[in-house]
């Protein structure tokens, strides 16, 4: 760090004393950037600082007079509260299951779509349609139209073949949410992996085929290594979006039956229980979890990004 800042400081000082036009020009270059940068810092960073501060207070919104500094007590409570601990576990299970399932399905679909066949464009359009439903609408579709034990499509079709009539949401609530999310996120993974497949070098593949490599060998030793970073990117971006999922949990189970994940719990803690301090502490924990994922995500994005920049 120090090695990079030192020359910059001297350069800036030199600019201030000797070359005002140079400094002016530097600001002219920066000027178009500033509105966006300042806006982002004010709207996204300040609230996090506020959350951090509030998390140190014992503060129930219904008893504003009883607000007092509590140090790290909220964090202790969050980490020992069985409901909150369960929601951490639920968040992890939900995210890992949905990301892995949609990655595997997405890879299969991307491989199918990477070949020429009649109507490929139409099939691609059909496949991405689930991703283009408003998330609440998709959750309503699964809750009422597919899962409903009396007149839902799943039980309707089972009825036609004389099958059982399970109550999907009551018997397997988390799986019900996961299935609807996998349905929505598989197209996303497919699109990323398809882009990865299409960026393979055709000459190299053709050369391998000429040398007698089998389809499996090409997939195992050329396609998969090439796709690795796209798989990582899909997993990380999917994790970032799904860790934050609120819509499906809120719509399908209202956080009941042990399906409350962290975002839902944070929402519930301050919106219904008015425990501002606790909610903030939980929020800070969500941030810490996200930063861990985000660090890896940024690394992958940056390696893909550098590759693009050097190629250009």
């Amino acid at each position, binding site marked *: 760090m120090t090695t990079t800042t030192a020359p910059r400081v001297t350069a800036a000082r030199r600019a201030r004393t000797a070359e005002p036009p140079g400094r002016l020009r530097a600001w002219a270059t920066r000027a178009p950037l500033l509105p966006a940068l300042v806006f982002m810092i004010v709207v996204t960073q*300040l609230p996090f600082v506020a959350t951090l501060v509030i998390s140190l207070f014992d503060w129930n919104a219904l008893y504003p007079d009883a607000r007092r500094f509590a140090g790290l007590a909220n964090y202790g409570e969050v980490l020992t509260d069985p409901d909150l601990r369960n929601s951490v576990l639920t968040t992890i299970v939900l995210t890992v299951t949905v990301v892995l399932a949609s990655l595997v399905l997405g890879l299969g679909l991307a491989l199918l779509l990477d070949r020429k066949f009649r109507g490929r464009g139409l099939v691609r359009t059909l496949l991405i349609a689930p991703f283009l439903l408003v998330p*609440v609408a998709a959750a309503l579709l699964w809750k009422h139209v597919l899962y409903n034990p009396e007149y839902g499509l799943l039980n*309707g079709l089972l009825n036609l073949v004389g099958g059982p009539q399970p109550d999907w949401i009551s018997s397997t609530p988390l799986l019900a949410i996961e299935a609807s999310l996998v349905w929505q996120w598989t197209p996303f993974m497919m699109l990323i992996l398809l882009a990865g497949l299409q960026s393979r070098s055709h000459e190299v593949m053709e050369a391998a085929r000429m040398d007698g490599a089998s389809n499996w060998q090409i997939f195992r030793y050329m396609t998969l290594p090439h796709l690795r970073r796209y798989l990582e990117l899909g997993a990380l971006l999917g994790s970032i979006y799904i860790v934050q999922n609120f819509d499906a949990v809120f719509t399908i189970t209202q956080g009941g039956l042990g399906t409350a994940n962290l975002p839902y719990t944070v929402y519930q803690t301050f919106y219904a229980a008015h425990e501002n301090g606790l909610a903030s502490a939980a929020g800070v924990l969500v941030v810490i979890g996200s930063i861990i994922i985000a660090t890896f995500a940024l690394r992958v994005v940056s390696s893909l990004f550098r590759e693009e920049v050097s190629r250009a």
Partner: protein
Amino acid sequence: MSTLTAVRKGGIRSSGTRDTGIRGRGAALGLLAWLAGIVFFLPIAWMALTSLHSEEDAATNPPSFAAALTLDGYRDFFGAGGGASPWPALINSTTASVVSTLCVLLLALPAAYALSIRPVKKWTDVLFFFLSTKMLPAVAGLLPIYLFAKNTGLLDNVWLLVVLYTSMNLPIAVWMMQSFLAEVPVAIIEAAQIDGARLPTVLARVVAPIAAPGIAATALICFIFSWNELLFARVLTGTVAETAPVFLTGFITSQGLFLAKVCAASLVISLPVLAAGFAAQDKLVQGLSLGAVK
């Protein structure tokens, strides 16, 4: 059948002199792709069909595939049955999405210019700062924003959503537009400047036409994210400023026979997103991967 023959032709083209066994397998894989597409689309097709059935036909078990079609579900959704009209919510959503998208473009275009065509020092660091804000969960900043809105009287005000949606989409837009503007060849810009063109002229006549499709795709993707957003809208709006997804949450608890109405509502409210998504299909990945994948 025509599908099959086309796949065979494709198989011949791609693999040259392969035997018929491989071609047969190619056809089978093509069929499999079609099957997967249909399976994934089936729930939406069923939703569309149900929205066109009467409530009685929509709630039968086994399902009535060939029941008479009617637009009653849509009439009911738009308030014919005496329910709340969805129009205020649709108008709020339109305001929040369109205005925030315009704000995003207004802020992101100059920023992207300063990160690509005339880059500032350490421009990659700035780019990654934008990206990192997108990776922090929105729910963690929700409470201070709620308290701020409550104390300043901005609760249940659609303009607060405009500001928040702008911040939510700005990183995506900066990333996407940076990559689109970086594709404009510097030589063309320099040539125009040598010919005496001033900066506004260069931007309007040289940069804009090349970057226009990318800018349009960025706008569509920002529109989709704003239109879909539920958490902020749910917490920060009430009866006046509620958006379309918040209106949809009114259907969470069952209300007797209402399946056709739910399907009609879900489809109508998803329609702008479906349209925008299909229009921006090719750039969708780029937007969703924050510009990492082209």
